[in-house]
């Protein structure tokens, strides 16, 4: 599941004055805070490590080709609701909610919401890929470059990864912090009680065909070269698009008004949307 960074922004924009150096949190960062191990604290921000699907098609309004954007809409008042008027509610019975503010959420585990505290290190090979959820890169913030490099280098040399827990928005994540090509990466992990047992699926094997299968596998053993496998759909779509571009079959959207003012809202809304989709996917 992806971290719900849209809502994290919402929580941050609640006018908290206690945050240190909020100006250092860049707009495109998902989260910023500190990674620590023992007495070393490294200021970092979280950025993407995976970017699904490079071809993105935009939704446009059929009548004038004006681009569409996602927004939260109040069906009662029939209007777009700005970020500051959105609040989380936990449904206790149909239509009845307990409202929870951003401050209240941050108060659940205040020691973990701005700090990824590595309490122990492990051999990353001990973590089954089944546990991995979503990977991110960590990027050092000003002043943290040296300690960031040190942690990456020391973990690389020792072939170790750090384990930590941290809270983002309304979720607590179990994470591993890894050294990756000189950078620090972090991956959220599933909790062990979220992993379903596999033992009910299949009875113990009867070995009758095993030798044939082993021989076949042996004959097909090779090195892992993921570049060989590409997303055909993307290539097919690109070729369709290229043909159309050559024919100059393009349309033009009208000039938007007050583009600047709308931008922040659009980003936040699409982030919110992503987080909602992630939530659905996870259930």
């Amino acid at each position: 599941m992806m971290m719900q960074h849209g809502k994290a922004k919402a929580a941050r924009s609640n006018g908290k004055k206690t945050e240190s150096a909020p100006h250092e949190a860049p707009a495109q960062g998902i989260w910023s805070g500190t990674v620590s191990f023992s007495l070393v604290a490294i200021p970092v921000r979280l950025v993407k490590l995976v970017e699904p699907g490079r071809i993105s098609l935009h939704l446009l309004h059929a009548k004038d080709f004006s681009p569409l954007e996602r927004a939260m809409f109040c069906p009662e008042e029939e209007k777009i609701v700005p970020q500051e008027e959105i609040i989380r509610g936990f449904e206790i019975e149909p239509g009845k909610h307990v409202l929870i503010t951003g401050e209240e959420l941050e108060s659940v585990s205040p020691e973990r919401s701005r700090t990824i505290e590595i309490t122990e290190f492990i051999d990353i090979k001990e973590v089954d890929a089944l546990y991995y959820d979503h990977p991110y890169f960590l990027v050092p913030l000003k002043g943290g470059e040296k300690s960031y490099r040190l942690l990456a280098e020391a973990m690389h040399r020792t072939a170790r990864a750090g384990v930590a827990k941290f809270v983002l928005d309304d979720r607590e994540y179990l994470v591993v912090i890894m050294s990756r090509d000189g950078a620090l990466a972090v991956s959220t992990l599933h909790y062990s009680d979220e992993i379903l047992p596999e033992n009910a699926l299949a009875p113990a094997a009867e070995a009758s065909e095993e030798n044939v299968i082993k021989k076949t596998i042996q004959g097909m053993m090779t090195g892992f070269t993921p570049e060989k496998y590409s997303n055909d759909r993307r290539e097919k779509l690109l070729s369709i698009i290229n043909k159309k571009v050559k024919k100059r079959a393009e349309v033009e959207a009208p000039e938007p008004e007050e583009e600047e003012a709308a931008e922040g809202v659009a980003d936040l809304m699409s982030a919110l949307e992503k987080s909602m989709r992630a939530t659905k996917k996870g259930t």
Partner: protein
Amino acid sequence: MASTLWIGNIQFGGISVPVKLHAAVSQDRVQFHLLHKTDRVRLRQQMICKLDKAPVPAGEQVKGFQVDERKYVLIDAEELEQAEPEASRTIDVHEFVKTGEIDPVFVEHVYYLEPDASQKAYGALAAALKDMDAQGVCTWVMRKRAYFGALQSAGHALRLNVLRYTDEIVQANSLGLESFELSEKEVGIGCELIQKLTVHFEPGKYGNEHQKKLRDMIEKKAHGQKIALFTPKHLKPTEPGTLLDALEKSLKGAA
């Protein structure tokens, strides 16, 4: 047992193993609704026209590929269909690799496989993969999408790891990190500290206590109790000049 998500057929070198896909992970987490503060109405997501600032129903939406600022090439449903992979029920295994070769960052999602008809071939494949410490690199088409994955053993069962395509993975060198001179002494102490703090990975010991605390808080609030507010803990970044000192003190503390 969890419900069957899809039915397919693993194929390689003339061997065929019919399987059913099941979820391998199940998350039960506190879910919130987004409400309008003023009237507590549950909000809906809508596609809004940037110009009209009004919701646009699905029937009035078209898809376009952006070629320039405000310039799009329209792609209709028929063209999208042309780009779709051909429907199939085959999980094609192209080659096998040693288990450790696949970087876990590639793994996007995991399914368990259940034998559909032939128990024998299934069991033999699971046992062979386990014995040989191998994974089958495969591709398949499921719900109009082409997937790339790795087939592996899980106990007596088989597991299918959905992999990300290579071009979806951001490379570390694109982050623009500056290289930084570190002293051997600093790195040495860092390594020693990490070794001292190393344990075996025991996933069972990490519980999601936060989830329980969150439920407790909701319960309290539902009963009209006041919630105590706490400020998040912020750590002061270690200054580059004091890094060695911090490392030495850490090592002493860990000893």
